[in-house]
């Protein structure tokens, strides 16, 4: 199967191609040097060509996504499309059904998406859903931040056991990386409490969030995992939390990266860049956070941009969801994952005329615009916390057009002028920078830049073509065209197969599920397993034998190998 994409205006920033006219040759699902004359030709006709989109943080599958579906029957009433000969029925907006996840991402030109949080104990559910999401490649980050074994090994300062636990946890959950949510807070929420700073001691475990984060970063680098620690900071969603965020970022200085990437990825920074002391004097501190990123190369972040309208917030951060539900008189679902984590789901409606929401909306855009290097600030909406992923085109248009931003600013609460810097920011991102924030940067942060996020020889043949001619459009003025083009790809090619043409699904191949097989010395695993067996005997409600995700759950696995290497500590 050969394919040749001709006359594209190609943006492939990690290979130094910025809008050059170039042909892309595809053979057997990979990008190659050249193809024979028998290849099927797609004439891009000068239109925008990028690698397939990569999303590093989106809640697309698993227990809490499903809780969102169950508690929001009203959401299911939107986005309804009956089945066709090719596609299965779709429903929902903020919490779409599994098929819609795959179709809608592919229709936007995205081909790889990572679920941002799965508890090991709930991983079977995650994989059952991932197996039903068509077209896109996917994977899931595994929660380690409040797990009892993690905190035990951190307290014992036993890095070998901690690394062995991560290795085993990734195997047990078929996970891709280490996700840390409100470290320590998940455990304390079991007692109706929360941690409020990096130095609060978690009762019964005698560890602090600071120790948990640093130890997990060290273990992550010992294992040489493709992705770094992926942190959802303490104090998320509280005014004044930017100080906690900055202090958390500083912890990255204590650890050296084992690969060419960051040592810490701080996610949905919008919710962690809050100034003020309460909701009355609440303001954006995106400039401080962006400034830190501009001066440090070991930390990356993503926006978590807010979209006005309906959202379903879902997170392993149980206490913040209780606060949200009380504050907004909203529906609330609470979950407890035994020895591992808490969770909460709360539907919210972001209104333009509410000052807090207007400031948060501006904060996300400030983060995108004030961070100079787009490799350090990925484009996300923390789907569906900030808003559904189908709105990425709106975010792209806002980042590319100051005119659109000024038009929007006129329609939102006036606090956006006094509490944020957004009205005075004139920067407009170009296609290269967008390609980095949605493709090359994401792939680099995930440690997948060898095969994803670029169009060089050897990369996966994931390509998207958008219906705009970069040399004939002024994104600043014609932002409506930008938005419409990025919301519906002219072509999406996944693994060398055309899956979307003119915004319509044309094929529904099964994507692969990425997971990391990180090896550690056998005696470390044996030592660690003694503790785990004890935990199952004394505390877990299920047997160890029923805990592991078996191979049968992953019909199209893509295993990334990693393994213990000596860690350098500065």
């Amino acid at each position, binding site marked *: 199967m050969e394919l040749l994409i001709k006359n594209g205006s190609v943006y492939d920033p990690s290979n130094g191609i910025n809008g050059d006219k170039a042909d892309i040759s595809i053979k057997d699902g990979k990008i190659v040097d050249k193809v024979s004359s028998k290849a099927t030709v797609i004439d891009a006709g000068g239109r925008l060509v990028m690698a397939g989109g990569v999303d590093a943080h989106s809640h697309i599958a698993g227990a809490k996504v499903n809780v969102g579906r169950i508690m929001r029957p009203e959401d299911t009433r939107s986005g309804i499309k009956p089945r066709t000969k090719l596609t299965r029925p779709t429903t929902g907006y903020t919490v779409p059904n599994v098929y819609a996840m795959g179709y809608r991402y592919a229709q936007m030109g995205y081909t790889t998406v990572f679920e941002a949080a799965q508890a090991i104990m709930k991983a079977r559910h995650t994989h059952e859903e991932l197996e039903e999401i068509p077209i896109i490649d996917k994977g899931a980050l595994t929660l380690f931040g409040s797990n009892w074994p993690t905190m035990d090994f951190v307290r014992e300062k036993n890095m070998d056991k901690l690394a062995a636990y991560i290795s085993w946890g990734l195997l047990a959950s078929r996970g891709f990386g280490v996700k840390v949510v409100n470290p320590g807070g998940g455990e304390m929420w079991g007692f109706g409490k929360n941690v409020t700073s990096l130095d609060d001691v978690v009762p019964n475990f005698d560890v602090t969030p600071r120790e948990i984060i640093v130890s997990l970063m060290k273990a992550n680098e010992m294992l040489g995992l493709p992705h770094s620690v992926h942190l959802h900071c303490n104090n998320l969603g509280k005014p004044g939390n930017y100080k906690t965020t900055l202090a958390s970022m500083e912890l990255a200085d204590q650890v050296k990266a084992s690969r060419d990437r960051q040592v810490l990825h701080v996610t949905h920074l919008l919710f962690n860049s809050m100034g003020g002391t309460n909701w009355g004097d609440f303001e954006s501190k995106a400039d401080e956070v962006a400034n830190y990123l501009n001066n440090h190369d070991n930390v990356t972040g993503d926006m978590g941009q807010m979209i006005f309208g309906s959202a379903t917030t879902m997170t392993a951060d149980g206490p913040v969801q209780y606060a949200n539900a009380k504050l907004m008189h909203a*529906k609330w679902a609470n979950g407890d994952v035994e020895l591992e984590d808490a969770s909460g789901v709360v539907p919210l409606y972001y209104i333009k005329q509410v000052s807090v929401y207007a400031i948060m909306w501006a904060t996300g855009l400030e983060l995108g615009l004030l961070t100079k290097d787009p490799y350090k600030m990925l484009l996300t909406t923390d789907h569906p916390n900030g808003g559904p992923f189908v709105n990425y085109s709106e975010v792209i248009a806002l980042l590319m057009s100051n005119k659109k931003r000024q038009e929007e600013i006129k329609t939102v609460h006036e606090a956006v002028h006094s509490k944020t810097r957004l009205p005075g920011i004139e920067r407009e991102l170009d296609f290269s920078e967008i390609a980095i924030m949605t493709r090359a940067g994401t792939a680099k942060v995930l440690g997948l830049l060898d095969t994803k996020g670029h169009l060089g020889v050897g990369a996966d043949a994931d390509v998207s073509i958008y219906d705009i001619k970069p040399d004939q459009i002024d994104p600043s003025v014609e932002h409506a065209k930008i938005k419409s083009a990025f919301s519906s790809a002219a072509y999406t090619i996944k693994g060398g197969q055309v899956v979307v043409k003119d915004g319509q699904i044309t094929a529904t191949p099964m994507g692969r599920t990425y997971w990391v097989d990180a090896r550690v010395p056998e005696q470390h695993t044996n030592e660690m397993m003694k503790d785990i067996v004890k935990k199952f005997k004394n505390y877990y409600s299920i047997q160890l034998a029923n805990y592991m995700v078996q191979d049968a759950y992953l019909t199209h696995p893509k295993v990334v190998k990693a393994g213990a290497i000596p860690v350098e500590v500065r």
Partner: protein
Amino acid sequence: MQIVTIKPTKEIKISTEVENISPDKFAGKTEQEIKSLEAWIGNQKMTIGELFSVKVEGSAPAADTKIVMEGDFSRVKRIGEGMTAGLVIINGNVDMHLGAKMSGGKISVKGNVDSWAGREMKGGELIIEGNAGYYLGAGYRGESCGMRGGKITVMGNALDFVGEHMCGGEIIVNGNTGILPGLSNNGGKIVIGGNTSRPGSEMSKGTIIVNGTVDEMMPVFKLEGNEAVDGVTYKKYTGDVIVNGKGLLYIK
């Protein structure tokens, strides 16, 4: 003025959904055009013409369109859904979701209506001369706002959960209602002529007036003394105190 007369051509025994029966959809259309509009009976897609006889007089925009429905529509759902103007007169009983999401115009029913009449209604008027089912003027499953505006009048009785999650508008039930009228209310006004039970639970805003007896009172309201409304003296309660509500409950 456009007058459209609709009659079932045969007895409809299984659930039928015809959201296309609405002045907005019929306005300016000929008999043939109306007959070819979509209708669902059970899991089968059909047309209005296959289920009903249609007679059209004149042609006018939605505001000047009157639909007269003669016969038994007790298995026909979603009549007048989302209508913005015009008049629908139904000389018979109807099934669920009558006038759901309507924002203008008027529907008048001679018979009884089933559950969810006036669901999430935004404006206009709904007059029911018989009885209403459950969830009159309520929000559908999961919805945080039911009725937001307009007026519903029921001459007979209504069943449970009248105006659940109501955020605005007015519901008048001349007869009795079932349990929990005004459940989780966040605005609007409910007037009950007869008896009810456990009114206003979880209400944070809005007004409920009960002229009959209240069989059981939720212990979440604070008695504020007597107050006259439109010349009638009621006991005035505020609540629901559990949700820190500012709802008003007047009981004779």
